[in-house]
């Protein structure tokens, strides 16, 4: 459904003429005339109002009874009174009723000081109660989940939390039990409310009924300061506000930005701040001494790093992790190109795409925004699981489907959390993304051998055809949300073919000609993958997607070259390839063979712990300064909320130091100066400043400088026959996924630890039955003599012939089973342990 056009109307509130968009609820429209109507249950983010609390009663001329302002849309010429004695009496009695059963234990209540109930009782209540009977009692406080405490006595039954669970995150866990005064919020059977977005209900609760266990009794509103920044834990880049007390982050709140996060956060972004203050965090520089990493002075660490890079004589490979800011990535690039003289650096975990293809995929004309997902006619989610890869996007997709009737299609190998919302779900064989996009292109165009291509992709032909039909017929606003891993095949030709097929199919759907509301939206594998790409932190792409004079090695080639001794030193910027890149064995070998490894890390993950010779501490999210680029091109600014540990240098200073120490041109003195350097180097970022980015970021596509975007490859794209998915033939295809809870920040945050994933093998029950495997049983998954043990997890939705394992779990990861030279995913056997 395209965005509706909204007219302005005029109405009168308390004698003032106010202009408001037609259809706005009175409670919101009155604000435009500086009239405050108290509300409890009304929260526009939750969708349609329910009118549960009656706090917002107002008098409307011509309507005999008082009306709820939260659920009455304004009409032209409406005359509203919010002040007269009748309204006043109603407000006072609603407050009195709400307080009948309310314990008013504000001194011990965590909401005290920032409590809407306190404010509204003070502003609109009568100040005294006539209620003398005993109040209702519940046990308090109770654990709703390890993250959330619930105090049922304080609950005013506004339904906000239940509506969030039922209608926004759609985890359907929270319900209201019992009736009348006995009503209480809970989960079925008292199960803990564990869900990826559960933390949002604490922010929604207008009283102190739902409070954070992690923030419990930590501070009062007058003890703290709020500091806005951006979450750096996934490409979603939600806008957050850090709550700081005594120079420590004690809480993370959302900072609503409708173009990015819609005012929600996932629990990872909300609680992972705790990992900033754990002992395991790298607190200062370390160097390897007698085989062990020991703390060292900054001078020594810097000179060791300089020696390592110097000794490698230009044969240095560098990797920039997706979590690096634009500034960090830029300095790493300068270090490599200007000083070391090596072009072997990459910011992608795998795969290579030419500058032309990359520019075609990222062109402003082909770009869909996050907000477009809400209003598109149809959305295709292609080879990505939003809730794991970019959690906040999951909520946006659900919103579009639920509220605006967006037609959703999901095409993945692993069953998706969005399947129940999708009109159409198509499965293809793990790793056969390339073949699937080729089939999709054929189906959309109604040309070519759909049947053959679908078979190559291990997908159902009719489903692919139905998908093609649906996308073609849905309307002109189609958005394709595609996972970057589609182009991550070990063979670059395969990745390029997938990209071309995607472009070709998009071209057929008219997504590439600059129509607002339609286009492509990538879900990258790294938080700032787009920014790093645009700066040219890629082996074959220069700043601003220019063609570089010389092409270097991609990350996979760096690993191979390191293992063969051709790349001698490795520089790891916020990344541990052993832990998080595909081809674990290859990276183990590469790091072991390197003569020197310089790493910037927050935690000593396995690869860093075993192989790094120098470790520089990375800043935590709340300590970081710089800019990042959202997958839809929005430049956002990271502002440090707290100071770094005593004496610690920020990463950009370490990198500038290395540049000068190795004889490079002296560089920026502040992080902001690096941003200006970037603005000069990337033509379509020209002139961008921190001020212009501001609190909510700015999409470069909307600036004038976007005209400088280089022309990428334009069709016609010719496709080659894709690699066919191997037929299982008794074995199982190995698929992998990375869960939202798989990250060192989650593993180290005390509140989140319980969510840290354990390896599980997702299987179809029939496949399991063939092998005599029961749900919950321990199994070993073996490929080429390497095995990983896991718990069998039977899912009816899981396609036959495949098994899915998690990555990011050390030597028990799916990546341990992926063989080094494979172009098709490994075949594995699964047997009970």
């Amino acid at each position, binding site marked *: 459904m395209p965005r509706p056009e909204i007219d302005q109307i005029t109405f009168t509130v308390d004698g003032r003429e106010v202009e408001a968009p037609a259809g706005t609820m009175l409670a919101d429209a009155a604000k435009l005339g500086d009239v405050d109507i108290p509300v409890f249950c009304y929260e526009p983010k939750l969708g349609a109002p329910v009118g549960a609390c009656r706090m917002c009663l107002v008098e409307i001329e011509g309507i005999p009874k008082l009306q709820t302002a939260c659920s009455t849309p304004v009409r032209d010429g409406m005359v509203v009174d919010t002040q007269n004695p009748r309204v006043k009496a109603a407000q006072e009695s609603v407050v009195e009723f709400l307080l009948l059963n309310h314990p008013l234990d504000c*001194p*011990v209540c965590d909401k005290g000081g920032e409590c809407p109930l306190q404010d509204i009782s003070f502003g609109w209540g009568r100040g005294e109660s006539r209620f003398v009977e005993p109040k209702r009692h519940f046990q*308090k406080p109770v654990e709703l989940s390890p993250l959330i405490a619930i105090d049922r006595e304080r609950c005013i039954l506004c339904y906000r939390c239940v509506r969030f669970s039922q209608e926004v995150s759609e985890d359907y866990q929270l319900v209201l039990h019992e009736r009348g005064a006995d009503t209480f919020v809970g989960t079925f059977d008292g199960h803990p409310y564990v869900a990826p977005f559960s933390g949002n209900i604490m922010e929604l609760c207008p009283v102190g009924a739902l409070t954070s266990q992690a923030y419990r*009794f930590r501070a009062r509103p*007058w*003890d703290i300061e709020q500091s806005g920044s951006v979450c750096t834990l996934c490409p979603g880049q939600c806008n957050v506000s850090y709550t700081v007390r005594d120079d420590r982050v004690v809480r993370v709140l959302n900072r609503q930005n409708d173009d990015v996060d819609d005012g929600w956060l996932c629990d990872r972004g909300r609680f992972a701040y705790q990992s900033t203050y754990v002992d395991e965090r790298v607190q200062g520089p370390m160097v390897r001494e007698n085989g062990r990493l020991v703390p060292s002075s900054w001078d020594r660490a810097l000179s060791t790093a300089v020696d390592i890079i110097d000794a490698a004589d230009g044969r240095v490979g560098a990797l920039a992790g997706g979590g690096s800011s634009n500034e960090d990535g830029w300095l790493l690039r300068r270090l490599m190109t200007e000083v070391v003289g090596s072009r072997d650096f990459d910011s992608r975990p795998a795969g290579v795409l030419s500058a032309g293809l990359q520019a075609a995929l990222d062109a402003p004309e082909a770009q869909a925004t996050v907000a477009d997902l809400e209003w598109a006619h149809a959305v295709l989610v292609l080879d990505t699981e939003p809730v794991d890869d970019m959690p906040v996007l999951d909520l946006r997709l659900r919103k579009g489907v639920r509220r605006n009737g967006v037609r959703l299609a999901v095409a993945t190998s692993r069953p998706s959390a969005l399947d129940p919302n999708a009109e159409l779900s198509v499965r293809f064989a793990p790793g056969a993304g390339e073949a699937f996009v080729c089939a999709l292109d054929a189906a959309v165009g109604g040309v070519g051998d759909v049947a053959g291509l679908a078979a190559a992709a291990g997908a159902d032909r009719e489903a692919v055809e139905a998908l093609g039909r649906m996308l073609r017929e849905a309307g002109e606003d189609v958005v394709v949300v595609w996972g970057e891993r589609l182009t991550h095949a070990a063979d670059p030709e395969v990745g390029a073919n997938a990209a071309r097929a995607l472009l070709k199919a998009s071209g057929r759907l008219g997504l590439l000609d600059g129509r607002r509301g339609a286009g492509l939206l990538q879900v990258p594998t790294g938080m700032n993958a787009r920014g790093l790409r645009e700066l040219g932190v890629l082996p074959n792409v220069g700043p601003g997607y220019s063609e570089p004079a010389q092409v270097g090695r991609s990350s996979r080639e760096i690993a191979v070259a390191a293992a063969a001794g051709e790349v001698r030193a490795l520089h790891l910027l916020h990344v541990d390839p052993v832990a998080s890149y595909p081809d674990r064995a290859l990276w183990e070998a590469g790091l072991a063979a390197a003569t020197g490894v310089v790493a910037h890390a927050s935690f000593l993950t396995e690869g860093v712990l075993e192989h790094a010779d120098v470790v520089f501490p990375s800043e935590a999210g709340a300590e970081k300064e710089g800019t990042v680029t959202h997958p839809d091109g929005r430049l956002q600014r990271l502002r440090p909320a707290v100071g770094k540990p005593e004496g610690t240098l920020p990463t950009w200073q370490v990198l500038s130091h290395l540049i000068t120490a190795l004889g490079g041109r002296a560089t920026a003195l502040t992080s902001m100066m690096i941003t200006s350097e970037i603005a000069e180097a990337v033509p379509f970022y020209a002139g961008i400043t921190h001020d212009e980015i501001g609190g909510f970021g700015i999409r470069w596509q909307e600036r004038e400088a976007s005209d400088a975007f280089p022309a990428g490859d334009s069709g016609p794209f010719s496709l080659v026959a894709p690699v066919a998915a191997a037929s299982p033939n008794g074995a199982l295809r190995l698929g992998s996924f990375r869960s939202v809870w798989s990250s060192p920040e989650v593993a180290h945050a005390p509140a989140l630890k319980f969510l840290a994933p354990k390896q599980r093998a997702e299987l179809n029950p029939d496949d399991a039955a063939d092998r005599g495997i029961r749900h919950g049983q321990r199994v070993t998954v073996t490929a080429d003599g390497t095995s990983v043990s896991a718990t069998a997890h039977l899912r009816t939705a899981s396609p036959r012939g495949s098994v899915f394992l998690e990555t990011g779990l050390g030597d028990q990861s799916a990546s341990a089973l992926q063989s080094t030279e494979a172009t098709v995913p490994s075949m594995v056997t699964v047997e009970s342990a």
Partner: protein
Amino acid sequence: MTWNPDSDVVEVARGPEPGGLGGAYRVFGETLRGLKTSFMRVVEGTHTVEYPEEKIPVYPRWRGRHKLHKFEDTGLEKCVGCSLCAAACPADCIRVVAAENTDENRVSGGERYAAVYEINMSRCIFCGYCEIACPFDAITMGSDFELADYNRSDLIFTKEMLLAEPMVRTPLRAEGE
């Protein structure tokens, strides 16, 4: 004296010329008059309070060094660490860090207690707002005003210091005194 616009000479009334016998008499006479007052006070006895050996009792509503209170029956602290005193304090000299009571470690009556409670006496202006703000009468202003110290940091009073019964150094005026 009025000003006469017709005349530009202003007459100023002056006292008698000093000097001479008359002058000497005036000086001597005044001195004697002063001495008479002094000697009359001598017989009245002393008025000086020999502080610090001797102290003036303070009135019951005097606002001196704070005290934190415990319940007499249970021995639990009255303060629940709500920070309302800190919010009310115009000098911003109270710092409260709350923590949760557990069954093993029950410090106060409610769910929370003050794990850290500090008042910086060198900043306190003894306005008593903290006492008024406290919903549990956990903090009251005492009578002690002798808070001088050699070190500023020693003037940050901790919870233990505030809970301890202060040394009785300042006499309190009795009812009707």
